[in-house]
């Protein structure tokens, strides 16, 4: 019996405990790690992948998957730059265009999956390639920055609007001057929003129901198609928010495939399964998962660990998290039944 309690405890709090120990370890061995600014840095470095990961979480909840988020984010990056630098639109128009683009991509993903019956991985894989190509067409594959030469020969005169850059660069005073960057606040806000939506509303619970047994949920009268499409739209919109923040931080439209964003955020969502022994996709876990990776990378960089250790460490964390989720949890459950 005692053993069971111990295992239950390990599954429930093991991951959070591990994160706590890591923080302690780095505080002692990496100079400058402990402190409010350092903590904020960690949040900032995971804000964008974290936001993407929250979107993926929604699609995981309905037993789907969205491979297109990385490319949606980089498309939003290019689109916002294109709107402001080439078309000389305001920050508001640029942001709205990106959100709309994200929503439309999510809608198309959802329709492909529920109406055309394309398997989720394949539909979103197709969308991923489509977007990687599409984002390069308007500029013939060039990066966008003020003063760039357009395909037609003229020079782009627009600049990134101040209000837009504010989204990625402004820091809000909290006890210390210029402490918390806007992306971190947006990340926390979206985390809470998605957490409330998934855990506390009827809609969220229905989405979990669809994820665990689609047929049963349909028989109980749930609008399965509607909720699935909704999940992909949320994912598309959060990914475009990530892209907007990325553009605001970089201040230019750099072409990139966004594959690293995709992998990092999927890893965060999967690590989230292990947090509090949830063994299922959940918003709180996703946010913690993203932070966990952020803490590790920040600490390692501070200790001068070479760059190639980063991917290795991410992989190791993911594997350990998956063991927590699948091996340990299922054993306990098996014992209880």
């Amino acid at each position, binding site marked *: 019996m005692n053993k069971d309690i111990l295992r239950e405890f390990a599954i429930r709090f093991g991951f959070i405990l591990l994160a706590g120990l890591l923080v302690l370890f780095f505080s002692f061995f990496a100079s400058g790690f402990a402190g409010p600014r350092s903590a904020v840095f960690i949040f900032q*470095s995971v804000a964008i992948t974290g936001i993407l990961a929250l979107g993926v979480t929604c699609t995981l909840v309905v037993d789907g998957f969205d491979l297109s988020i990385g490319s949606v984010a980089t498309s939003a990056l290019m689109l916002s730059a294109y709107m402001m630098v080439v078309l000389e639109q305001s920050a508001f128009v640029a942001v709205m265009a990106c959100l709309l683009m994200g929503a439309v991509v999510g809608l198309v993903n959802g329709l492909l999956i529920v109406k055309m019956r394309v398997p989720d991985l394949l539909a979103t894989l197709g969308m991923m390639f489509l977007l990687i190509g599409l984002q390069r067409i308007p500029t013939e594959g*060039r990066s966008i*920055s003020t003063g760039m030469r357009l395909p037609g020969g003229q020079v782009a005169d627009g600049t990134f609007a101040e209000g837009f850059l504010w989204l990625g660069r402004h820091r809000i005073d909290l006890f210390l001057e210029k402490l918390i960057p806007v992306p971190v606040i947006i990340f926390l806000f979206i985390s809470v929003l998605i957490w409330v939506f998934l855990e506390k509303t009827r809609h969220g619970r229905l989405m979990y129901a669809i994820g665990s047994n689609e047929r049963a949920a349909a028989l109980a009268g749930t609008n399965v198609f509607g909720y699935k499409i909704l999940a992909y739209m949320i994912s598309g919109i959060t990914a475009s928010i990530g892209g907007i923040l990325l553009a605001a931080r970089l201040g230019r439209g750099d072409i990139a495939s966004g594959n690293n964003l995709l992998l990092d955020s999927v890893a965060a969502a999967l690590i989230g399964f292990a947090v509090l022994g949830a063994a299922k996709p959940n918003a709180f876990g996703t946010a913690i998962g993203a932070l966990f990776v952020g803490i590790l990378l920040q600490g390692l*960089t501070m200790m001068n660990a*070479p760059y190639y250790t980063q991917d290795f460490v991410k992989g190791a964390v993911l594997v350990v998290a998956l063991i927590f989720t699948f091996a340990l949890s299922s054993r306990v459950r098996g014992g209880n039944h």
Partner: protein
Amino acid sequence: MKQIKVKVISLIGFTLSAFGLATTSFAADMPAPFDNAGDVKIALVRFLSTGDFFQAYLGGVESQAEALGVDLRVFDSRQDAALQADMVDQAITLGVDGIIIQHGLTESMKDAAQRAVEAGIKVVAFDVNVENTSIPQVEQSDYLLGKLALEQALKDNGNTFKAGYVYVPGIAPLDRRNVAWEETLAANSGIEEAAVFGTLDNPIANSIANQARSVLQANPDITVMFAPYDEFAKGVKIAVDEAGLTDQVDIYSADVSTADISAMLEPGSAWVATVATNPAVVGEVSVRSLAIMLAGGDPGASVIVPPTLITQSFLSEQGIKNMGDLGAKMPQFQHADVAMTDWMPLPAR
């Protein structure tokens, strides 16, 4: 796989470029085969294409090809080494007269380049060693890029300072720039290498910014950052600004673009100097070297385009805002007098 067919501008209907100033220096008599330049087909086979540098390089190749009046085909393998080798074979099948190989891996390109040579095609290679004596190497001197930037760092900061260094081993140009860094470290015992970091995760500037911020947090007394690639420098600059160390840290980098110039000119920018070869000029030199070979000449086994130091103060004093201004105020940046002949037409400026 993308093939852009660049329009051949006919000798008669040459339109003035939007920039004004245009007088084309068509040399009166170009030797064969350029007396019938429209029939000359050349191919550019690229390994790397994303980023300002490669865009500008392509621009240079295009404008020099246009000045010569030849038919240019562009093959872009987008960092797929196997595809790049296939593209060389495609170009051979297409019956091109000359090929420019732009970057790539020695292992994958060596055989493909040899096949092209055997097919009677003239080949030049830019920034990739294909181990073939009949293929001239066009290079920007990466070692000199690093060296000039570091000399400026020593001039500005003395020879005792704490430095951060951005480096990813295994990337040929970065490895060559690294030689200059190691030499400087060895020659100046007062320089302390507090941190070495780096990544090529896309988007590079964002990933570097995250790392650099951690490094600055751990070593708040760093005063010099050597980031010998402009994407690195952009990331470091974001981190320096975010950490509020703009006044304390100086960033020295390599390469330049319009976006880089505006970053260097931001009020109080920490990015104080960069060393660059104009990528467009490197592109032009690549085409000219190939043209010399097609006309039966020899550009030499190695064609080196010399780099130029560009400081923040020079930019602001001269009121330089973009690459166009830079070329106008710095003639050595606009045109490199390498791979030239008396008949060679130059692109309109």
